């Protein structure tokens, strides 16, 4: 029977017309069409247009007469690398990432492991720690700007209680960026915490219990059971947080306007500024370098954290896309 079918199929050059298959194909594209049109126009198109624009001297005036735009090759990118301000904002962005990701991960992991051990009020803490995540960065920046005030801010008042004369957080070139990072940790750790809690829930209790029977203490169980089992989740959390932090902008816009002395100006801020000056081609090039960093970060973190992970639970492309 199977052989006969195979022979019969082999004999016909094209598949026999199946009305269900054709109906499905038509329906599939009909359902996909509205999304695809919007997606091509407002996402995929602009991603490519931005790349194209980065090789030109497109300026604001050229919106009316796009034919005047000159192809300039890689010169926007060459100028960016030479631009001391772009170097500074790149450094600021990297610093924000390098400070922010570990701190956010640590806070989120501590909160998740702590909440996971509770037998009461789990939901209360989870919801409370998640609150800042849903709020507007602009709004919390307005609030934190006042918390950070030199005189009369809540932080320096609290420091005053223990006899410390608090600094002018946002007006100090060394403290401004870490101050923004601190707020970002406060706002974002809840998002990671929820992801880590989901990861912790997948660790079979028996493994931890077996380690306990073997005499492993609380720290050993965390270090040698929980952390390795959580590796894929940690990796994912690091990537997601890193991608977000590479794009920081709103907190700097509201709290410091990029100052003092550009100490908190980010790559996104730089792009926004260049856009404001009308240098669209230059802005597009800067944004593409940021995009490159996002792609690179994703890749590097997967290599670094993923490679040492030899367990079969590792997520593969097939699992995701199938």
């Amino acid at each position, binding site marked *: 029977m199977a052989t006969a079918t195979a022979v019969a199929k082999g004999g016909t050059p094209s598949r026999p017309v199946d009305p269900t298959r054709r109906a499905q194909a038509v*329906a599939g594209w009909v359902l996909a069409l509205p999304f695809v049109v919007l997606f091509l126009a*407002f996402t995929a198109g*602009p991603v490519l247009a931005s790349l194209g624009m980065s090789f030109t001297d497109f300026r604001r005036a050229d919106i009316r007469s796009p034919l005047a735009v000159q192809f300039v090759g890689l010169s926007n990118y060459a100028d960016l690398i030479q631009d001391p301000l772009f170097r500074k904002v790149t450094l600021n962005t990297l610093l924000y990432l390098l400070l922010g990701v570990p701190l956010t991960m640590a806070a989120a992991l501590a909160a998740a492991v702590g909440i996971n*051990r509770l037998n009461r009020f789990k939901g209360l803490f989870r919801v409370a720690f998640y609150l800042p995540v849903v709020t507007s960065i602009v709004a919390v920046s*307005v609030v934190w700007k*006042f918390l950070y005030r030199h005189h009369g801010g*809540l932080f320096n008042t609290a420091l005053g209680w223990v006899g410390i004369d608090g600094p002018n957080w946002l007006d100090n070139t060394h403290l401004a960026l870490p101050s923004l990072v601190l707020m970002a940790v406060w706002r974002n750790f809840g998002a990671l915490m929820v992801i880590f809690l989901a990861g912790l829930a997948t660790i079979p209790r028996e493994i931890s219990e077996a380690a306990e029977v073997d005499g492993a203490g609380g720290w050993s169980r965390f270090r040698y059971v929980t952390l390795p089992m959580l590796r894929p989740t940690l990796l994912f959390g690091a990537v997601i947080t890193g991608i977000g932090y590479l794009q920081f902008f709103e907190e700097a816009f509201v709290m410091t306007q990029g100052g003092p002395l550009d100490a908190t100006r980010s790559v996104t801020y730089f792009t926004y500024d260049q856009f404001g000056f009308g240098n669209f081609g230059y802005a597009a090039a800067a944004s593409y370098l940021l995009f490159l960093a996002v792609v690179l970060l994703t890749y590097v973190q997967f290599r670094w954290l993923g490679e040492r992970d030899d367990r079969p639970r590792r997520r593969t492309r097939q699992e995701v896309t199938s």
Partner: protein
Amino acid sequence: MTDVLPARPTTDLTADEPPVTGRRPRDRGDSTRTPAWLYVVLTVGLVVVVVPFVWMLLSSFKPEAEVRATPPSFWPETVTLSNYDTLFTRLDFPTYLFNSVVVALAVTAGNMIFCSMLGYALAKLDFPGKKALFAVVLGTLMVPGVVTFVPLFVMVTKMQLSNSLLGLILPFLAGPFGVFLMRQYILSLPDELIQAARIDGAGELRIFFSVMLPLCGPALATLGILTFLASWNNFLWPLVVAQTEDKYTLPVALALYSVGQNATQFGLLLAGAVVVVLPVLAIFLVLQRHIMQGIAMTGIK
């Protein structure tokens, strides 16, 4: 790029179980082991997380002189509504509120409709180009908004839509996140329903709209809430497109006030922050179950 997506099992909602219903056997086995210090530490964390919001709310009811006082008061000594009065009568906050609501609702509706359509097609239908389409959509999931806003601005200006609400809405009407979320959910629905409907002679589109879509309630709720929140808090694009005050959304207005001529009116700005934050916190507290479910389902906020 597709690698960053987690393959989180759609059925794994263990993290979502509230403690009241979540009394499973393994919790009970653990019940003697929660040390008291853990509650203390977590409570300190809770205070740190909540105090900025409480202080924001309390200070928004203080007169300007009290907001500026050194040392600052925590509880208002004089309670006044003057900050809110200024926002809504002297400044144009009703307009910003209206703009924010209209944009967020339109964006939410668009994503719920278009993403569920494509999500269903990708999950349950067989059509040429399906795999490539899914790969392309997923590939853009991590594209930063800053990468597209310059050409988008040129395009929207060409379409005569800059400084209009439509210009704020259109680019966000259909996003890759929603497709991913809906597809993941619909994959878990049984194929037998579709086959039975086909045997009964229902057309493919009818199967989607009458049989499958009504079953997508939980995923649609999650998508709707998350999209609404994202749109409500969206900043860079509205900042670029809204050029006159009557097109500002709330975050744009608040940010520009806080760096502009109202930068020193602390009480006023804190009241503005309350207007931006409070609706979102209320939505979250009422519907947090759906939000947590969405995160458990996709791993992405």
